[in-house]
């Protein structure tokens, strides 16, 4: 049943992916200016050679079909901008960086957010709850590109504890500020979600029964409340992964991290068609996959649902 469901979902994702690639392909190609437009004009002969080399002299639909056929073979094409590298090379170096950043930020957001949410719900309408709620609203309201420069000023320039940017030696200290900035709004959202659903669960009749039985509160929370209360958080993980991905585009620029987000921005500005498409394809697949995983976890947690 499970495998059939997964297979169905994966097959169903193919048309979505194709439509996405199609739209992205035509959008990047319709942007004015091309990859070889530069401050210094190149001669017509050289331009013609470059166009031929990168198949830009072909009609657009042929280029699209060529792109698809090499994509099926796992080849994302040469980068138009970084002439020594293929898009596969670039993704191989950039993706692990972004993945690390994203996974750590997401885990941090879930763990910290759930904990804060539970603490907040248990102390409902008390001072601690008020502070956590104020913190959550602030976390949602202040964008990363405002938080980041303040973190840099404080921790890198004044205290000198952390590097102001870069990802040079893969040190844990390089990751602290970007992860914190990226996770902050997600921690805030998850805290709010967890608090709300926890309060609802704590008010339900079976919890009242457990309380009446004299079960200590930590056992009530651990054994009986977390599982039902976490469902809204799980369903939020799909959009959250998308938010982490788009958030990393900004964070990677600010901290100078050589990840996919930076490729995407630079690729779009340089009209590096293949690089932009490569990032779109990969991120598209990731988001579809993340949604599938979330649905699977959801069904596992909620016995009322079935694979259908």
């Amino acid at each position: 049943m499970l495998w059939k469901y997964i297979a169905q979902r994966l097959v169903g994702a193919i048309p979505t992916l194709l439509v996405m690639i199609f739209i992205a392909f035509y959008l990047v190609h319709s942007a004015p200016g091309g990859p070889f437009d530069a401050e210094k004009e190149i001669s017509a002969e050289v331009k013609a050679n470059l166009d031929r080399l990168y198949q830009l002299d072909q009609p657009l639909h042929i280029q699209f079909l060529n792109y698809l056929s090499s994509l099926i073979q796992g080849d994302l094409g040469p980068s138009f901008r970084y002439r020594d590298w293929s898009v596969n090379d670039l993704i191989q170096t950039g993706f692990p960086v972004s993945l690390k950043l994203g996974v750590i930020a997401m885990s941090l957001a879930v763990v910290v957010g759930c904990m804060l949410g539970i603490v907040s719900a248990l102390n409902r309408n008390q001072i601690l709850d008020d502070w956590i709620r104020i913190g959550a609203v602030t976390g949602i309201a202040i964008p990363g590109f405002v938080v980041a420069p303040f973190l840099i000023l404080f921790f890198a320039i004044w205290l000198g504890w952390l590097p102001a940017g870069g990802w040079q030696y893969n040190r844990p200290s390089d990751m602290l500020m970007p992860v914190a900035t990226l996770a902050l709004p997600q921690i805030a959202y998850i805290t709010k979600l967890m608090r709300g659903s926890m309060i609802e669960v704590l008010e339900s009749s079976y919890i009242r029964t457990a309380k009446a039985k004299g079960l200590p509160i930590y056992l009530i929370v651990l054994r009986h409340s977390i599982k039902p209360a976490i469902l809204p958080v799980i369903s939020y993980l799909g959009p959250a992964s998308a938010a982490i991905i788009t958030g990393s585009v900004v964070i990677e620029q600010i901290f100078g991290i050589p990840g996919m987000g930076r490729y995407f921005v630079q690729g779009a500005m340089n009209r590096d068609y293949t690089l932009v498409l490569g990032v779109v394809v990969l991120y598209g697949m990731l988001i579809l996959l993340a949604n599938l995983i979330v649905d699977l976890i959801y069904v596992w947690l909620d016995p009322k649902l079935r694979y259908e």
Partner: protein
Amino acid sequence: MVFSVLEWRTICLVLTIGIQLAGCNPERSNRHYSPDPAVLRIGNGTEPQTLDPHRAEGVPAANILRDLYEGLVSEAPDGQLIPGVAEHWDISEDGKQYRFYLRDNARWSNGDKLTAEDFVYSFRRSIDPKTGSSYSNVLSCIDQVEAIIRGDAPLSTLGVKALDQRTLLIQLKAATPYFLSLLTHSTTYPVHRQSVERWSGQFSRPGRLISNGAYVLDDWVIQSTITLKKNSRYWNADHTRIDTVVYHAIDDPSQELQRYWANELDWTASIPVGQVEWAKHKFGSQLQISPYLGTYYYALNVSRPPFKDQSGLRLALSMAIDRELIVDKITAAGELPAYHWVPPGVLNYQSKSSIDTALSPVQRLEKAKRLYYQAGYSEDNPLRVKLLYNTSDNHKRIALAIAAMWRKTLGVETELINQEWKVFLSQRKQLDQTQVVRSGWIADYNDAWSFLELFQSDHGMNFTGYNNPEYDALLSKAAIENSQTERQRVLQQAENLLLHDEPVIPVFFYVSKSLVKPWVQGFAANVMDHHYSKDLRISKAGHLPEPE
């Protein structure tokens, strides 16, 4: 969004600087900072497209290539030309033939001998349209280059020949006084034939790149860092003091400044717009500002109304600009107001012409008004122009100021149009649409030709539609002129004619701006802003100034 991401970041930077100026200045870590004498960390702007010297473009790539490769001729820290791979050279009497004698100990980083044949191969590759070099045109002073680029002659006819292993002969079309300085340009660097052929073009990657300069490529993390290590096989390796040079790709000057401030960089590529005063206050003598061979200008499209056949109107617009105000209040980093086209500091050339600097500012404005009225415009019938610039805070401020000056003095109504860089690049070529286009030109080599050639009628960078046979004839004459004095005179005539016809409004001459830590020794300013890491060293004695 009310503000763009970039604007937000600028706001944040200004805020943080505000807090700093307000007196909170702990900077505990900085006082104890001790530099590593073996490592130089350079902020280098955008990520280079490639480290293939024949296909690379732009200043960031050129900076790295200067460390990796060495051409026939090199430069001293002050910019003077010195022998590179060629130990010495002879120039024929007519100035058309150069004979270079290569060093016996010139080697590639893998130990192979560097021969004259390597240079022949490299020059041919650089010019071959198949390579896709955007700079092949700058070599057109060499015999047969233009015909080869057009496809009319085979590569083997190129005027670069190896007489023996150590002697290279270069035949020019005409005496070209700037030829030696051209040989410091990356497009003339030698490449290692076996590795180019083995990796079919994608050879400039770590583990593949074989170079002949003071450094070799050690590591390259795209969008992050390019690390170079000392090349022990370089002929003058004993004099290279810094073992490792790390180039950081940082496109945002604000981020670069933060990292410099946090002692993570020893040298920045730039300074954020509007922060020069603050940087002066904060970093004192670490701020390096020096003249740079470049002109910031507005190109006027003379091929269509309102500027077609209206040289008086064009001059009026030029004269109505208060350039002193722009360099004092807007750019504010010591730029020079530009009243002519070729910047000062160019070798063997002195601009003789100027846009009526003999007049007082008031007289100049009066003359501008008179010319404007003569062109048929008035308060009731104002000139309406479209000013196109690429999106950037700096260009916007300058455009706003100039539009205000035009409006105040003449009553011109200016529509400002900003476009993203690539859109701008394709738009500026559309002569049937443009009117005024913001531009800037940085010399590829130190010669007046590098500036004046732009306005030849068939030049690829001529976005004004300017087509004056007399101007073209003067440049053609200068191109084959053997006498330096006479050549200067002809070029001066051409510049004079250009300023008379006024298809271009020069606004200011650039300066190079960077921050250099006090422990970096051997740094010298030069008009091309070319620096070689091999000439630098890091001294532990260099200390940070006492915090205010």
